[in-house]
């Protein structure tokens, strides 16, 4: 995936790389990009983890400060938790621990609990929201983009209006949307309960009770709020307009065959790209959504870990998030490669 348009193995390529006459055992074409890819992958993970540690170290106060008699306890705990060393040394020690696969134990969030256990628990809850959220956002954006692009292409009214409506809906920040939805559902349900119209729903009251409705709201907010739907719709709308104007689509239409299979197939790379690029912002959005809806996911946990200066836990969660984003990127790229032969030829 170097981006070069010159096929590997050509004379010009070999001459450019100075390989003419020196070939004895040529490397397969996938080796360098793969190694470079994994190297970049690892660096991103470690970089994210170290950045989090550095930021927490630079923030005022540490884990010992949270305790009532911190001054008395500092000599013992600072040594135990490694907080008495310079920041650079702490970063280096972290690298060493991560290289050995040791994430350590939580200092202040759940003292003594292995970070792995907490990360897995949080990631499980977050994944249950994140993946459906991404899919929901994509599907919603696709459906609306199909409609609006068709309206624009055919010159019929409604497209721009729906686009405007989506923008105004989606631009609502996630925390505000969550606040309004939770308040609205609760108020309405309570009114119905008090007036004997309905029994007490299983999900009542939000967001305290773990329920399908709470999960659905979380999924909706991750997929749609904070301009998520707007961005995805805009990208798909533009892609669909371009596709609808493509000669092969016109030809298919002229033959009287169904157009949508071709549209969707050609949209897949765009969808994959969108999913990959949205994953980072969706994961960031989890932090707000989980806090507002009291979901004990990785986002809410990371928030608490930072507040409580729980460095090992914060590093573990950041690694998990970076892993998720990078994996999403990797999977999307690989699928795109598989779907689009033109990209393979570029390699």
């Amino acid at each position, binding site marked *: 995936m170097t981006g070069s348009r010159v096929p590997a193995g050509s004379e010009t390529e070999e001459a450019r790389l100075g390989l003419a006459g020196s070939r004895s055992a040529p490397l397969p074409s996938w080796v360098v990009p793969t190694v470079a890819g994994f190297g970049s992958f690892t660096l991103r993970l470690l970089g994210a983890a170290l950045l989090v540690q550095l930021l927490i170290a630079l923030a005022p106060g540490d884990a010992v400060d949270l305790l009532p008699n911190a001054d008395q306890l500092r000599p013992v705990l600072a040594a135990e938790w490694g907080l008495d060393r310079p920041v650079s040394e702490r970063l280096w020690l972290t690298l060493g621990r991560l290289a050995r696969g040791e994430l350590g134990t939580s200092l202040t969030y759940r003292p003594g609990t292995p970070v792995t256990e907490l990360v897995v628990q949080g990631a499980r809850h977050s994944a249950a929201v994140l993946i459906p959220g991404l899919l929901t956002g994509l599907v919603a954006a696709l459906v609306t983009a199909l409609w609006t692009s068709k309206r624009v292409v055919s010159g019929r009214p409604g497209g721009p209006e729906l686009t405007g409506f989506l923008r105004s809906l989606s631009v609502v920040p996630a925390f505000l949307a969550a606040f*309004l*939805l939770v*308040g*609205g*559902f609760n*108020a*309405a349900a*309570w*009114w*119905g*309960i*008090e*007036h*004997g*119209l309905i029994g007490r729903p299983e999900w009542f009251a939000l967001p305290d009770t773990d329920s399908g409705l709470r999960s659905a709201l979380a999924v909706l907010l991750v997929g749609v709020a904070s301009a998520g739907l707007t961005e995805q719709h805009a990208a798909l709308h533009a892609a669909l307009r371009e596709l609808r104007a493509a000669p092969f689509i016109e030809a298919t239409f002229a033959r009287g065959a169904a157009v949508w299979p071709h549209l969707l197939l050609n949209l897949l790379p765009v969808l994959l790209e969108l999913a990959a690029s949205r994953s980072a912002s969706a994961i960031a959005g989890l932090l707000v959504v989980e806090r507002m809806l009291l979901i004990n996911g990785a986002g809410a946990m990371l928030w608490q870990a930072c507040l409580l200066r729980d460095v090992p836990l914060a590093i573990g969660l950041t690694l998990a998030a970076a892993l998720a984003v990078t994996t999403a990127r990797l999977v999307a790229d690989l699928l795109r490669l598989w779907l689009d032969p033109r990209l393979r030829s570029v390699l």
Partner: protein
Amino acid sequence: MGRSTWWRRAAVLLCALGSFSCDGQEARSSGVDATLAMGWIMRVVQAPDTFSTTVDRGGRDAWIAFHRNDFLGATTGDGAVARRAWGELAVFYDVLADLSRVTWVRLGDTWAARGGPPRGSVLPLLVGWAQNDGEARGAATGVDDPVAGPLMNAWSGRPAWDPPETFRTLPLGQRMLLHAQIRAGGADLQALRSAGGQPIHVEVVAEKPGLNRALFDPLLYLTLKLRADAEAAAITPPVDPLETQLFSAGFGVPAQDDTSVLAALGVALPAAGAPAESCRNAARSLDTALDGWRAELGSLGDPASRALLDELRLVEGLRARLLTRWAVSALDADQPACALAYAELALDHEHPREVTPINSPTLFAALASARMRTGNVRLALDALEALASSFPEVLALDETLGDLSVLQNLGKSGDSREN
């Protein structure tokens, strides 16, 4: 969806979309209770002119003061309102007197548990004085203190007591003389109220020479109570029943006492010795009955009637006064936990530290007494604080109760938390 219910579903949907507050309210009971319809509140609300006439008869300002629970201010009125105000003051001071007695006794017991009071202190004398009430039974006998002893031993507390001249020069003697004069009706009540905030005796603290211990009057409130009783009795009872019932703790239903009215409302007062939870249940039953009735009254057609009801908070005031009366009765029956339940439920938390038309001085006194007698001496001081600005004589009790609180917690290390 049926036509009759579509608007309800739509309202639910609107609530969901608009997220305006749709917090549910208690379902309203149907029908004004026939019993309460004959009570004084209904009579006042249905005939505002009669109310005005009644109020003007005794002095509008005095009735306004009485409504605001400013009992002292209301005593300046004529006739019924003054009699009622003196009666309320008598109840108020009675509660304080009882609290004072219990406080002094407990102070003595606490000192005893710590090995006895400071050497040479007259505190035991005052404890004995409080315990014996100083009136009918005479003072504690066999007192050793050369100064206070003879005085205490000679105290009779009866009106027209005429102590020897030597005693009149001592602060303790002067106070005792004033007590006797007040009870005989020969001195102004205000004199004792003003003096009440001053210590009755000052002695040197043995642990720290140069430091004085101020001891306050244990009989202050009993004397004030007796005088208030006498003042009330001296006023001719009113003829108009409304003057007796207006802003009272009773329902004022003709030919029915309040117990039967409560029974009709489904409120059963617990038997003596019942746990505090039974008392809370009784209060909750009262709330259920009065809330429904209040909701019905709110739909009255006449704006003047509604204004009277809303601005004077007639039902809320009745509730608070009724609960306060129950609290006082529970204290008299030595059921402080019950009294505490009633008093806590009576308190208006919108103004929890002031005397208002809902929070009477008697309520705060009952709250203080109930808290103290259930062991929470420190919290009792919170309730007394609300009375400090209107009743400077409360300072005496406040200081004594404070001494008890401090004594109980001497030597203990404290805990403090931020935020």
